[in-house]
């Protein structure tokens, strides 16, 4: 009896560990078969997301980039690292120790430092960023790992064995391949595995050194997480499956090999085969690299190219393909995760033709002379744009730089079953109504949170008055203390579809989407005024083909195109007819769709002075860490 009790503890511990490790993976795999977009409600089995995954050119391209880069980086860094390790063992002690220490620096270095250093290096060397730079970067950060795992094996190796091989008739090269490499195999193998995994799941370095639309899985997934996209689950499931197959194969391989080793005759046959197989495989690899390079360069050189830099999940990729066909050009499409990271990339010297930033960022780009004026004569659909979006634009007063893309406002999404209609009159103040304590989501955004507080207090959301900002700070602190709000990102949509809480601060487009999925939800924009935001397409100074750029922007103002694009994005289109189409059609009566923005208290975010930015950022940190 006692014995049993003792043995239960460790088992339970193991069980909990495994649960902790594998539950997230299991959940991901489970929901990859969900028929709806929800990540919390299983609505039925379907292979819909797999189908979507396999037809998504973007993801497939990223899978190819990730895997091919991982393979090449692994092969090259393994060769480099192994040779270095062997060479090191023969060099003088001082040099050896020195190099080994230097070798550790890139390993210990934070990824971000490596990433930025490489980015600066490639920029100053005027290397065009893309596949090659990403490959070079991966080789650079993988090689130290190979050296670290191979070197101990080299040190413990019997150096006589190389002499023995040469004594038996092996040339130095044969001694290397037939004796030294097999001796080091465990170390080389460990190094290869490390290099491969490091390369395959690298995000930070890849993100900074890539360009020209080349993206690996990590970058694509990271940009996809901006919106709920269960395709990620399907992709993750397939990746996990691949890893499991590889691991099982690696573990079973010695057993299979041992079996085959039995018969020398049989072995002789296989040896002959493998002898031919190696050069063939090497040949295939080289040809593959060649093709990759050639297709990359030829594609760039033969057609006119448009480089577009957009927020993640903010365009229907099918439309880009359609545009490429119609105008016989190539669109190099890249995505960013925030206006700020886009700005960083621009500063680092990345060049694009078209950007799609938000209002305040456009203002900043205009101020800092990054943009070119648009040739409005070439925008045939100019008059189709919602007139109000073309008037009184403080961020671009004369409408010289911006072609509005999508727009919306910020409001409150509420559960009609829980929230009293009368309470809505309180406007933003409802977020401090004790009745809903612990029952609300705030949007995890510095400017939107301050906007809410400032608007409630009757101030401008673009205020530069520190006293007013401090009052807003007090308002938010008090809300944190009394209301227990949860700060969330885009997961707010999924949570609200599931009806997890009664109130949530959301963008109008997201509100539309939630209401469409959950009829109990409704949306309103408080009377105190709100942020009315516009994302616009702008043309950079680096653009040499204004005609093509204008054709691209004009293309997305076309009614048919914009309808399809809006279907995908779910925000309010800047095209009047499309806006009306949705307001009167599918989303008629949905208060999140095309909310009333005529309220004079509404404002547009402005680019603020650096000092004020730092001041609010500091206050925001305090609010977030307040207990």
């Amino acid at each position, binding site marked *: 009896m006692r014995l049993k009790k003792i043995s239960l503890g460790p088992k339970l511990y193991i069980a909990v560990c495994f649960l902790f490790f594998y539950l997230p993976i299991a959940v991901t795999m489970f929901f990859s078969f969900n028929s709806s977009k929800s990540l919390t409600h299983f609505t039925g089995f379907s292979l819909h997301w797999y189908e979507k995954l396999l037809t998504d050119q973007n993801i497939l391209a990223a899978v190819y980039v990730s895997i091919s880069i991982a393979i090449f980086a692994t092969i090259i860094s393994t060769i480099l690292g192994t040779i270095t390790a062997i060479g090191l063992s023969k060099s003088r002690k001082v040099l050896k120790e020195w190099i080994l220490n230097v070798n550790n620096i890139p390993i210990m270095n934070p990824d971000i430092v490596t990433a930025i250093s490489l980015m600066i290096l490639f920029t100053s060397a005027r290397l065009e960023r893309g596949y090659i730079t990403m490959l070079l970067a991966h080789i650079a950060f993988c090689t130290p790992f190979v050296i670290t795992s191979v070197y101990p094996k080299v040190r413990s190796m*019997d150096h*006589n*064995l190389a*002499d*023995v*091989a*040469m*004594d*038996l*008739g*092996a*040339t*130095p090269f*044969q001694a290397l391949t*037939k*004796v030294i490499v*097999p*001796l080091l*195999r465990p170390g080389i193998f460990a190094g290869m595995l490390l290099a491969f995994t490091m390369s395959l799941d690298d995000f930070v370095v890849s993100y900074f050194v890539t360009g020209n639309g080349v993206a690996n899985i990590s970058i694509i997934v990271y940009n996809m997480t901006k919106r709920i996209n269960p395709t990620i689950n399907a992709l993750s499931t397939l990746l996990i499956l691949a890893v499991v197959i590889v691991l099982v194969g690696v573990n079973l391989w010695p057993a299979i090999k041992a079996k085959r*080793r*039995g018969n*020398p*005759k049989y072995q*002789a046959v296989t*040896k002959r085969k493998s002898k031919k197989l190696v050069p063939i495989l090497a040949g295939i690899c080289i040809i593959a690299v060649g093709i990759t390079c050639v297709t990359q360069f030829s594609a760039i050189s033969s057609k006119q190219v448009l480089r577009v830099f957009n927020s993640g999940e903010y365009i229907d990729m099918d439309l880009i393909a359609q545009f490429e066909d119609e105008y016989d050009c190539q669109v190099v499409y890249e995505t960013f995760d925030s206006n700020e990271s886009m700005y960083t990339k621009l500063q680092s010297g990345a060049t694009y033709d078209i950007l799609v930033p938000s209002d305040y960022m456009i203002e900043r780009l205009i101020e800092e002379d990054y943009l070119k004026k648009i040739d409005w004569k070439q925008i045939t659909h100019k008059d189709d744009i919602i007139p109000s979006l073309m008037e009184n634009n403080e961020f671009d007063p004369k409408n010289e730089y911006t072609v509005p893309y999508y727009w919306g406002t910020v409001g409150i999404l509420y559960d009609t079953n829980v929230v009293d209609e009368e309470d809505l009159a309180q406007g933003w103040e409802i977020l401090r109504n004790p009745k809903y304590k612990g029952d609300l989501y705030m949007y995890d955004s510095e400017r939107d949170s301050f906007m809410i507080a400032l608007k409630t207090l009757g101030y401008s959301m673009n205020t530069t008055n520190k006293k007013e900002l401090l009052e807003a700070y007090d308002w938010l602190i008090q809300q944190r203390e009394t209301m227990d709000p949860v700060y969330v990102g885009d997961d707010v949509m999924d949570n609200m579809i599931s009806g997890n809480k009664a109130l949530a601060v959301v963008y109008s487009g997201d509100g539309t989407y939630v209401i469409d999925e959950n009829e109990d939800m409704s949306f309103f924009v408080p009377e105190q005024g709100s942020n009315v935001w516009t994302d616009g397409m702008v043309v950079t100074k680096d653009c040499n083909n204004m005609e093509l750029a204008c054709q691209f922007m004009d293309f997305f103002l076309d009614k048919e195109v914009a309808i399809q694009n809006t279907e995908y994005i779910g925000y309010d289109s800047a095209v009047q007819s499309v806006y009306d189409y949705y307001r009167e059609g599918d989303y008629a009566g949905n208060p999140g769709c095309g909310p009333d923005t005529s309220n004079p208290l509404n404002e547009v975010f402005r680019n603020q002075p650096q000092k004020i930015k730092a001041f609010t950022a500091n206050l925001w940190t305090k609010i977030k860490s307040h207990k």
Partner: protein
Amino acid sequence: MKEHPIIELKNITKNFGDQQVLRGIDLNIYENEFLTLLGPSGCGKTTILRIIGGFEEASDGQVLFNGDDIAKLPPYKREVNTVFQKYALFPFLNVYENVAFGLHLKNVDEDVIINKVDKMLTMVGLKGYEKRDVTSLSGGQQQRVAIARALINEPKVLLLDEPLGALDAKLRKDMQIELKKIQKEVGITFVFVTHDQEEALTMSDTIVVMNDGIVQQIGSPIDIYNEPQNRFVAEFIGESNIIEGTMIRDCLVKFDGIEWECVDKGFRENEEIEVVLRPEDMDVIPATDAKLCGKIVSKVFMGVHYEYMVETANRQYKVHTTENYELGTEIGLTIDPYDIQVMHIG
């Protein structure tokens, strides 16, 4: 047998940095001979082997193989193979693959290889071990694999670098006999390096005694043992009493104040010399009949014989005999003329 040298070393020197490990080595190695390089560690014997094998380049001098200078030839082009210290088998290959390594490199037909490996393993007594992991073999078995692996390439000369060093005493004895047998069977030259004089005496046709980078004496085991040319050789090989003395004239030597008949000639009259007396050549006779008398001061039983230390007027003598005497017994000692070996001082 001795008409045709297969390897000739001419005035070989080798420096490692400031250190000179070989100081002008001249050596002829003949076909089918079992030649042993014998000397204490650090005497340069392994360096000679590595120069012949091609792993070291001589600082000066010539290495001729069948009359051709091979100084610049890399190891893999030389018709010699080496059995290394501590076996040095490839741990990632099994017995068969280890032995077949050299033939695989030459792209020999696998059927031929299977045949040859079979013959080699039979010769070294490891038939049936083909699929065994080399790391699972005993030291002696690993050594046999190493020998088979070297011999399968049919070299003209096999170099062996202290190949029995890591084996225990019993196994060493067996392997010594076996190696000699193998050498006779394959009929090629063996160049064997060891610091064990007994091993050298057992196996060799020719022994090259070395010290401090210089050849001390070259000769057959019997010559080396019975007629050491200097104190180093005498002390290094077997046990000996070495006594300073004077050569009165041919065949008459004087030491410890006593004149002795001997067989050595060709020394100057009254030349200062050294005499080597092997302990087993010292005969015990009754003290009353003896020119040289002494008292037994120590006695050790060695198995077949006793080792006595005999205190005489001038020195202690080491004496080996099968007779049993009590400690403290007064005995006389005598030496036959042909058992007295006279050497120049040097």
